[in-house]
């Protein structure tokens, strides 16, 4: 009886299409003002980005982005802004690297141990913000930002020769994780795909299942929609705040793992920073949806990969940064525009139906009179 709704499909496609078209138009304008040809830029991006080594690069780059986005999204779903994913993943990766570098156990024990340490440290770090929120009412944005600085300084303190790190040329890094404690890779030509992509997929599935298919997920989303409604239905809001903060931090702890277990094998002064903030952008871009965020992470990787190539083709280096910002803005705005349009259309339809009903009942009344 459910007939295929054509308007609904148009609405569904409308938002992403609108976002893409708007983003393309705006970035074209930006490129034009720098005196360059935007169409050639898009050609370069598509041509270079679709090469096989680019694809591998993009996937590898997207893994930590996706994990960071999921960590942020868990908070978003219940109206918590975990700005601290950045600090959480770095301090988690750091201590995981210290543990991993000081042990030589069989891989089957060591790898899970390193990952568990990372998750635990991330969870502890984020729980500080959660506890401060429920006991002292301090907003999580403030605490998580502060905790980012504390994390960076803590790492900076320990990451010195003679403390927890060793000196290697002009770098400091924790001792290398032995070969047995490294994650597998998926051989592709010319470079392998990180095996941690499996972790990202599992996290995505778990995120979808827990939030969408369990009572806990329902409670979490309820708190996000309306705290008073949630507590009226018997959900302890305080407990949910701490739990979701801890969950968010646990996933944040995984963000550093692709780099640590598949690429660098140690935490050094050159360990990537800032992925937590990229995660916020990607969660917005993917609208907290497990598949949407995966696409967002891949898009981000694609833009970064092709951005370097654009610089190589004499385009301004900042173009890609502008594109990333514009795309996120366009997506957020486009969805809002389409949502409001859909709402108005629905109201109009309902109004028309009601009017029609009223007319027929009037007619009936006339006939019977």
């Amino acid at each position, binding site marked *: 009886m459910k007939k295929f709704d054509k308007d609904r499909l148009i609405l569904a*496609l409308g938002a992403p299409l609108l976002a893409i078209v708007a983003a393309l138009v705006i970035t074209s304008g930006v490129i034009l003002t720098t005196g360059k040809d935007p169409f050639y830029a898009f050609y370069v991006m598509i041509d270079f980005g*679709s090469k*096989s080594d680019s694809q591998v*690069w993009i996937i590898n780059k997207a893994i930590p982005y996706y994990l960071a986005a999921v960590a942020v999204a868990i908070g978003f779903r219940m109206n918590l802004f975990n700005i601290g994913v950045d600090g959480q993943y770095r301090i988690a990766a750091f201590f995981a690297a210290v543990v991993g570098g000081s042990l030589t156990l069989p891989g089957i024990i060591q790898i899970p141990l390193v990952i568990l340490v990372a998750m635990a440290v991330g969870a502890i770090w984020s729980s500080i913000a959660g506890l401060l929120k429920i006991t002292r009412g301090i907003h999580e944005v403030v605490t998580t930002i502060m905790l980012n600085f504390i994390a960076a300084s803590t790492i*900076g303190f320990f990451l010195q020769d003679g403390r927890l790190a060793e000196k290697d*040329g*002009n*770098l400091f890094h924790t001792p290398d994780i032995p070969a047995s404690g490294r994650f597998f890779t998926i051989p592709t030509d010319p470079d392998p795909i990180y095996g941690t992509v499996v972790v990202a997929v599992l996290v995505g599935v778990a995120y979808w299942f827990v939030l969408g298919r369990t009572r806990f997920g329902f409670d979490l989303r309820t708190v996000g929609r309306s705290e008073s409604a949630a507590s009226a239905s018997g959900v302890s809001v305080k407990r949910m705040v701490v739990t979701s903060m801890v969950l968010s931090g646990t996933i944040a702890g995984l963000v550093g793992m692709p780099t640590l277990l598949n690429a660098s094998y140690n935490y050094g002064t050159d360990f990537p920073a800032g992925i937590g903030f990229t995660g916020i952008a990607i969660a917005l871009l993917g609208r907290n949806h497990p598949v949407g965020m995966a696409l967002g992470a891949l898009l981000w990787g694609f833009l970064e990969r092709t951005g370097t190539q654009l610089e190589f083709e004499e385009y301004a*280096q900042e173009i890609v940064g502008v594109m990333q910002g514009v795309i996120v803005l366009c997506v957020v705005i486009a969805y809002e525009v389409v949502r409001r349009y859909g709402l108005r259309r629905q109201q109009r339809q309902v109004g028309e139906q009601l009017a029609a009903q009223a007319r027929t009942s009037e007619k009936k009344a006339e006939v019977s009179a």
Partner: protein
Amino acid sequence: MRRVTKLAAAVTTTAALALTATACGESSTESAGKKDKGVGLAFDVGGRDDHSFNQAAARGVDKAKKELGVDFKEMTASNDETEADREQRITSLAKAGYNPVIGVGFDYGKSVNKIAKKFPDTTFGVVDSPSEGKNVAGLVFAEHEASYLAGVAAAKKTKTKEVGFIGGVNNALIQKFQAGFEQGVKETDPKVKVTSQYLYPTNTKGFNDPAAAKDKAKGMLDAGNDVIYSAAGQSGVGSIEEVSKQKGAWAIGVDSDQYNQPGLAKYKDAILTSAVKNVDVAVFDLVKSVEDKKPMKGTTSFDLKEDGVSLATSGGFIDDIQSDIDKAKKEIVDGKIKVKDTP
């Protein structure tokens, strides 16, 4: 609404898959052309116009272009980038046929040594990092020795008997500057107090955050330091600007002779001297060696002895203490003074 997102996601996935599937198989290396195009230069954060470290390297290639007629291509690192980004940058320069390919800054150490293995016919160079491959030239400098001389100058010029050091990022490289400076001050005048601070514990943003350096310098000036030595790449500009506002205070520049930097002309009367690192000489030597078909190999150290590092005299502000500086320089060269490279 849920249904809508799902549909949208499904449609975009299909589109994305269709797009990627068409180009599978060919890698970008295979489809790239290969001919000798000149020097490929990958800058550290801050880029060519940082008035300091990168600019020194840029002068090297500018000179090579003028004197040897070799072309060059520049690319610049951005903040928060990862090993993968650096590898890509080095790879794209190498595969496009640039030779030599030079990474400016120790952050390129790993990526240059790794990528060099894939391009055995290309010569690679990396500034501030040792060579680990047959076709890699590591260009390292004795920053601590030049910083020692800067310390001598600071100790002689301070009136408040308090001097400051600002490092961009607290890493092993910048600690060499700090160690040399502190030792130079102490051995010249034990009564002078040195305060050493860093802008960031680990983040390379410390090399292009002039605002942070400005704040740090202001704090140090307020605390009574009247000579401030900043080793922070582009950030140093902020510190120099702040110091120039206070009468009687001196800034000590780094890497390039910052008195002569056109971009810093406004503040040059506050620039006492600079601990110069002749990255330009090293880069030029490397380019020339490749042009002469005798490419440099292994790690080459540029120290005070062969003027790989030096203390600038532009402006003439240290003319009155030149004899002290020359004496210290001679003692370092002769090995009488051993300058520590860790604080």
